[in-house]
Structures are given as C-alpha cells and as structure tokens.
C-alpha cells in the first residue's frame, strides 16, 4: 500500500511540453523529495499523480493498479497545494475535518486527529478562524493539517513549508518526518529548501525542464552528482564551475563546492581579491575574483573577517573537485 510507479509520463499544455517523459518508481513507505528549478514541472507532476491533471501520455500506477481512470478521491492520497486551496467558507477546524467527515469517521476520532494535527502545527488558537483571518504561514499550516489528518497511504506535499519561519520550519519538518515513521505512508515532497531535501529524503529526484536529471540518496547526490546541473543545483551556495582550459585540465569544466575551498592570506592554489563578504553568523561566504579561476565563492565556517579588496589564496581540498565533460556529464 502506497507504492507508486510513473511510466514515461508526458504532459503538454497546448504547445508547451512541461513533462517530457518521466519514469520513476517509489516503493511503499519511501520519502521522495522532488527538487528542481522554478517552473521545471514539479507541481505538474504532483497534479498528475493526484489525478487532477491528465497526462498527455504514459501511466501512473499506484499499488500495482493503473489509476488513469481513478478519480483523485479514490486514489487514497492527500495533497498540500502550493496555493493552499483552503475552503474559504470553513473554519480551520472544518477545513481539516471535512474530508474525514465525508469518509464517515466518527466525530470523536475526527476531533482527536484535528487535535493532534493542530498541536503539531501550533494551530490551536486559530481553530475557529476562517482562512481570510489567517496569516500566510498560518494558512499554509492549515493546508498541511488538512492533508495530515486524513492519514492516507500517499502524501503529496507541494512546498509545504515555504512560508514558515525557521524555527517553525524545523519543527514542522521534524513532525513530518515523525509522521512518516508513524504512518509508514509514502510521501512525495516538493521543496526548494536544501536542508529539507537533505534531511527528509530517502531519495531525491532532481527535475529540470520536464526531465529527471538524477535520482539518488541525499549524500549520493551531494557527493556524486551525475552531471553539472545536479552538481550545481544541490548545495548552497552553489558549486563553483571553472573553465577546465584555464586550469590546464582536460575536462571541460572543473567544479569545486564553496565549502571545499580553504583560504589563506599568504599562499594557496588560486590567488584572488575579495569582492564581497556575506556574514551569516554561523558561516561566512567570500566572493573571490581569482586570476586563474575567475569569480568563485568560498564558504567558511564561523565568522571570518575579510575586507573587500584584500588578497587571499583559495585552495580546493584534495579529492573534492569534480570534473565535467563537454556534454555536462560527470567524468569519473
């Protein structure tokens, strides 16, 4: 219960092809995160899975059954919409409870589940409000709560935490992880947040322009990206790409993550000038303009004082550079 197979799914809106042949297998109970640039088709794919959108071709199989003709209600899913899509006329409580009531769940059970969900999402004070009287983050939490109370076999989350503050986001993320463990439900989760993707996922699917670029575990993607796109997309600040020719390498492009560069005032591989320094508290991002490597980003743990204009030497950690061919593929 909860397995999902997507076979060669394509979707076009008129002439615009948005999904260009997606193949994916999700086993029961897996936590799959979709990441990809804005507009790459993540929401569309979720909507196809949910049955809200017909795919132009291809099949979606849930629990071994082709669901093309199964209405969303019968697919045993719950979805958190990117646009929330709350029922404007119902209170928070009823927004969450409506689906259960429809399914004939006893009132006591409904109350219990709403209680759990609303405490998990810190929504208790707002149970009697209507969506129009909530803040953006509160609405988003109601949308999550509405999906969570239904305890389906398959969850579809479309950027569910984007409007929450850091603390709440961490909490909610942990709650979702716990929910996943408790219900053993399959979860498909779209996010733009690297931390969420890395911490929650059993498997990350990197989408780009309607195609899957790579599927793999979080650290797998981080450590062995299949191509330049994935390498650049996973990790923030993004990987530095340096023209191989400039470094005298055979590969078309050489990649080094900002966190795999060390700086030294006196000596190092690449000499550069500090262009800008971003102080994030826990770390510092330095933007260096290097003679050899061009503009690169260096991420340093902790506070690091560097005045723009200062000269610094950056050195890649040995064994932590990536090599990409002319086709963008990683050269092993």
């Amino acid at each position, binding site marked *: 219960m909860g397995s999902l197979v997507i076979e060669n799914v394509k979707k076009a809106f008129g002439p615009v092809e948005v999904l260009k042949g997606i193949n994916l297998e999700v086993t029961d109970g897996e936590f799959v995160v979709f990441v990809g640039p804005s507009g790459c088709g993540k929401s569309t794919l979720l909507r196809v899975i*949910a*049955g*809200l959108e017909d795919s132009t071709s291809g099949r979606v199989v849930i629990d071994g059954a082709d669901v093309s003709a199964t*209405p*969303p*209600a019968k697919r045993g*899913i*719950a*979805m958190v*919409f990117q*646009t929330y*899509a*709350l*029922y*404007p*006329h*119902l209170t928070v409580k009823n927004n969450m409870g*409506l*689906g259960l009531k*429809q*399914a004939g769940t006893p009132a006591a059970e409904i109350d219990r589940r709403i209680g759990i969900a609303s405490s998990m999402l810190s929504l208790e004070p707002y149970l009697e409000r209507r969506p*129009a009287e909530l803040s953006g983050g509160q609405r988003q939490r109601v949308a999550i709560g*509405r999906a969570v109370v*239904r305890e389906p076999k398959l969850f579809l989350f479309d950027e569910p935490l984007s409007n929450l503050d850091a603390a709440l986001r961490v909490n909610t993320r942990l709650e979702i992880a716990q929910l996943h463990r408790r219900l053993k439900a399959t979860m498909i989760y779209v996010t733009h947040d690297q931390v969420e993707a890395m911490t929650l996922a059993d498997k990350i699917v990197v989408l780009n322009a309607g195609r899957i670029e790579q599927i793999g575990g979080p650290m797998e993607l981080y450590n062995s990206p299949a191509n330049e796109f994935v390498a650049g997309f996973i990790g923030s600040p993004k990987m530095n790409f340096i023209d191989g020719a400039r470094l005298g390498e055979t590969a078309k492009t050489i990649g080094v993550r900002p966190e795999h560069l060390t700086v030294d005032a006196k000596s190092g591989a690449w000499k550069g000038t500090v262009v800008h320094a971003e102080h994030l508290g826990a770390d510092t991002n330095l933007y260096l303009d290097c003679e050899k490597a061009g503009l690169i980003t260096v991420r340093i743990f902790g506070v690091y004082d560097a005045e723009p204009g200062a000269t610094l030497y950056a050195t890649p950690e040995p064994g932590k550079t990536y090599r990409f061919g002319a086709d963008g593929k990683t050269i092993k």
Partner: protein
Amino acid sequence: MAARPKRPFRWHIGVFLAPAVLVYTAIMILPLAGTLQLSLFRNIDQQQVFIGLENFRTLFGDPNWSVGFWNALRNNVWFFIIHMLVQNPIGVLLAALLSSPRLRFAAFYRTAIFVPTILSFVIVGFAWKLILSPLWGVAPHLMDLVGLKSLFTPWLGKEQYALTALSLISVWQFIGIPMMLIYAALLSIPEEVIEAAECDGITGMSQFWKIKLPLILPSIGIISILTFVGNFNAFDLIYTAQGALAGPNYSTDILGTYLYRAFFGFQLQIGDPNMGAAIATMMFLIILGGVCVYLFLVQTRLRRYQF
C-alpha cells in the same frame, strides 16, 4: 497623539454614482413618485383633491376593493411559492450540472434552456395556450403517448388549476435567470478549491452541498430576492394568457393585474389613477419590506468570499 489628517473628499465615489443616479432619478424615480403621490388624492369633478389616506381606507375597508386585493395578494404568494420551490431549485440544479468541468454540449444546453427566457410573452402565451388547449390536442396527445391521457384537464380554464399552471409556465419561461446567475457564480469558484475537495474525497453531491453551495449562497440570496420582486411585480404573462380579468373568476389575479385594471381601467371600467396609485403603493411597500428584510437582515449576514 496628533490628530490624524482628514481624508480628502472622495470625488470618485460621486463620479461613479452620478450617471446612474441622474438618469434613474429623472426618468424613473420622479415619474413614479409623481404617480404614487396620486394615492393621496382623489379626482372630484376633474380636480385632484387631497384626501389623505382615504384611498387606502377604501382599498381595505370597501369589500369591492379589499376582496380583490386580498385575493390578488393570496394568489401572488402562491405564485411566488411555486417559483421558489420549483424555479430556483431546478435552476440551481441545471446550473450545477452545466458547470461540471468538460461537459460536452454545455453551450448547447445552456442556450437551449435559456431560449424560453428570451421569448416575448406573446409567444409564450400563444405556445402554451396551444399546447394546453384541449381542442388542438398537443397536451392530450403527448399525455396519451405516456398513457396519462385520463389526467388531462383544461388546466388554464379551471379555477383550481389555472394559477398553478400559469406559475409553472412562468417557471418554464424564467428558469434561465436563476440558471445564468448561479452558473456565473459557480464559474467564479477557484478551480483549486474544487481540486482540493476532489483530493479530500468530497465529490459529486456532497461537493455541491458542502463546498459549492456555501460559496454561492450570496447569489442564491440574490435570485431569491429577484424572484420575490419579479413575482410581486409580475403582470405580462397573466395578462397575455388570461386577459386583464385574470380568469377564470379572478383565480389567476395577482397584484400586477389587479393594479393594471385599477390604474389603466379595462373594457368599460375606467382607469382610476388614484386608487391605482394606492394599490401600487401597497405593492411597493410589500416589495420594499421584502427587499429591506433581505438587505438588512439576510445580506449583511451572508458571508462573501473573495476569489
């Protein structure tokens, strides 16, 4: 705390209101007010003489007037009840069906169902008289086809049926109006909300009751009050189908026809604008009462949702 600066005068409100208010006041309100005030006068020897509420006393005190008035009012209430119970639910049902996504031939259905509404009363009256006429046999013939011929009676000519039959004809004619309004309202519900409901397992009828209906409630309020106003002002259908005397035996007389006879006269009866205006004032007050109940009690309580 310093006093807040005063908000500048919002001229645009005036600009938005002015054209409507001017045209409407000059061509509708002033003439009608002029007419209604006739109810306080009486024509004595070709002179309009002020008599206060005397006309109303006549209207309610003189059985020659009051019997007709109460009869018309009673009939009108029945006329209204039928519309509320038949026209509006069917209109909502049709709109709900029409608005289902990707329904084939929706445009055809919509147009077809609306066709009666665009017909003139002359055609409606003629067509239904023809159909219901026992002589030419359309209705008896059709009923024969389904084996119900024995149930046929000349409905329009029988006191006990005529009003109901006419109400139903009127329903037939005007069903397009609630349908269109509700349809427009249903279309404005955001698709995502419906999609969320689909995912939540709220489909079909319960989706309608639990999601769509509450969201279109203001429109239902509007059609109810429009039906009320329209029915208590109705005139033409009865007039073309049953004549100004609203036969048989005044059984289809409603306020509109009653008012028409009094105001403009009929056949040998000479129009009496003063009594007519008194009746019109009463009608006006009845409708105004209804509209006020709606505006101040219902409308303010209806929740509206912005999409």
